[in-house]
């Protein structure tokens, strides 16, 4: 087991109190697993991603642990996390287009980053070149400035750099949102390739775009209002969603799976609840077509079948 997250709660400090952006997440990611995290804006997926690598200044870890390869990560301690970043946990940021220092040649920037982490650039260079070639980049990108590269090229450079130390866990946050559709697909496939070649052990892909997950993810984790809603193999989640929220989410997406093609794009009425003072019971209750009285009690995130979890009283049926 590569990653184990146990009862993780991460809150945003605001003037009006803590916003419970991530409110009790427990899940595991296996070696070699590509797990997709999906959900609406504000469901806590970005908070989850950030808490695994670098907390935002206003976040605080309220509870819970993150264990990677049997070692507990000091996620609340920014300094102590530095040891694990890049080597064990790494990130492909959402803003990959602007993630490279504009005034450094790419090779020099990588060399400065590596030596600051105590890694020899010269010794890493052959592998770096091999991987750049793998993603279709010529050697000479190392002598270029970021502004000389196209968006797709920058994206690939960032992916190669982020995974250069063969991290156990890679967090890819909305990595495709800034790209056009064909590049999106290529980049998503690259993640699979990197996993297959062992550049990364486990990958967490955070996205609002379920169709990408359907292509590349082994498992999908659906989140709603800071809570885990459902997790399971990608095919099962898309074809046989158990949680009513997952069903609506999938149904609102036009191009996933043949079964949904003729469906009209229907939104889910209502809005996610405020996470400042979240409601008791199931958080989806107010918008859920199936809600009954028993939903006033919070449903646990239980294993329905091996590798299949959901948090809904109706899911077992």
């Amino acid at each position: 087991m590569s990653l184990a997250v146990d009862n993780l709660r991460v809150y945003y400090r605001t003037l009006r109190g803590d916003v419970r952006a991530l409110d009790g997440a427990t899940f595991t990611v296996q070696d070699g697993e590509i797990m997709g995290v999906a959900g609406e804006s504000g469901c806590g997926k970005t908070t989850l991603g950030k808490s695994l690598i670098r907390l935002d200044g206003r976040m605080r870890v309220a509870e819970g642990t993150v264990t990677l390869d049997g070692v507990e990560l000091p996620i609340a301690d920014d300094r102590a996390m530095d040891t694990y970043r890049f080597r064990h946990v790494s990130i492909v940021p959402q803003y990959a287009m602007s993630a490279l220092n504009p005034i450094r040649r790419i090779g020099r920037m990588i060399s400065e980053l590596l030596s600051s982490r105590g890694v020899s650039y010269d010794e890493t260079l052959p592998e770096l070149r091999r991987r750049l070639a793998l993603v279709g980049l010529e050697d000479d990108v190392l002598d270029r400035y970021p502004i000389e590269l196209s968006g797709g090229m920058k994206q690939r450079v960032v992916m190669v750099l982020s995974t250069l130390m063969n991290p156990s866990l890679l967090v890819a946050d909305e990595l495709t949102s800034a790209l056009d559709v064909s590049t999106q697909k290529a980049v998503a496939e690259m993640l699979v390739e990197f996993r297959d070649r062992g550049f990364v052990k486990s990958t967490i892909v955070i996205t609002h775009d379920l169709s990408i997950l359907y292509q590349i993810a082994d498992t999908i984790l659906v989140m709603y209002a800071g809570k885990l809603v459902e997790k399971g193999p990608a095919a099962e989640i898309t074809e046989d969603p158990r949680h009513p929220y997952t069903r609506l989410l999938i149904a609102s997406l036009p191009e996933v799976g043949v079964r949904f093609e003729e469906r009209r794009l229907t939104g889910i009425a209502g809005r996610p609840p405020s996470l400042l003072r979240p409601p008791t019971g199931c958080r989806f209750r107010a918008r859920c077509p199936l809600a009954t009285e028993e939903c006033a009690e919070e449903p646990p995130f239980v294993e329905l079948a091996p590798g299949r979890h959901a948090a809904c009283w109706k899911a077992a049926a």
Partner: protein
Amino acid sequence: MTRYLARKSLLYLLTFFVAVTIDWAIPRLMPGDPIDGLISRLQADSTASQELHGYFTESFGLDQPLWRQYANFWRGLAHGDLGPSIAYVGSSVSELIWAALPYTLALLVPAIILSYVAGNRVGAMAARRKVLDNTVLPFAYILTATPYVWLALVLAYFLAFKWGIFPVSGAYDFSLQPAWTWEFAWSFLQHWFLPFLTLFLVSFGGWAIGMRNLIIYELESEYSNYLQALGAPTTLVRKYAYGNAVLPQMSGLALALGAVVGGALVTEIVFGYPGIGTLIITALQNRDYFLLQGLFLLIIVGVLVANFVVDILYVVVDPRTRTGIQGS
């Protein structure tokens, strides 16, 4: 790179052209006859003034059609002929300017360079140390809000009049003649220091504040976040932030030149320093329009040249201007 510099040069040529035109047009657009003003300065006798008026009109070519006057103005300029001075009878405007220019440059060039370097250093330091941020920065704000004239007056009052550490006025001791001697150099340096300090201090405040704010912005940028997410040490993140923050500071340098030059002019006046500023106040007091117009052109050309120098430096610092690829 050549494209970048070519564009800039074109802009400067255009600016020069506009400035010369303004310089030529202003006396002609303004209400009242400049010659009348000139004559009333020179003498009060009304019968003689009639003749003088005709004489001046002719000798300045004001009886010719406007386009011709304009062409003549450019021709004169091309020959370095800026006309005669009215305040300093017998001297030409260009002679006066050449005599005063070295003094002004001696103040300006070191003040600009040193304040820029020191301000950037201190500003970058303040951005990373809270103590410095709370102690040095308020001073920087006060300095940058201080009128040059007044700082000059305060420094002159305390350091020269009251405590007598520095001489009060002039560029060197009156008993000396400019010469390449140690004695003269020492005297020059003593006289130079306070006006220099005035210019240095005010500009220093602006650079320190600018750099501090830019570094804080850069530390929030995405490349900084990425570096930090990859566990890069603070030193590397700061180094990159500084490298990026220097660029807007450098563009700022070009923009600030005009203000520093203005500061130098009034500072010179306070210290009776025999540079361009003193020449301007004399020209103003004596309604010496030829001299004023010449000085105006000199300042414009000076600022344009300085801008061009900054642009060349910018090309050295910012790789993006060298790649020849325009950003997407």
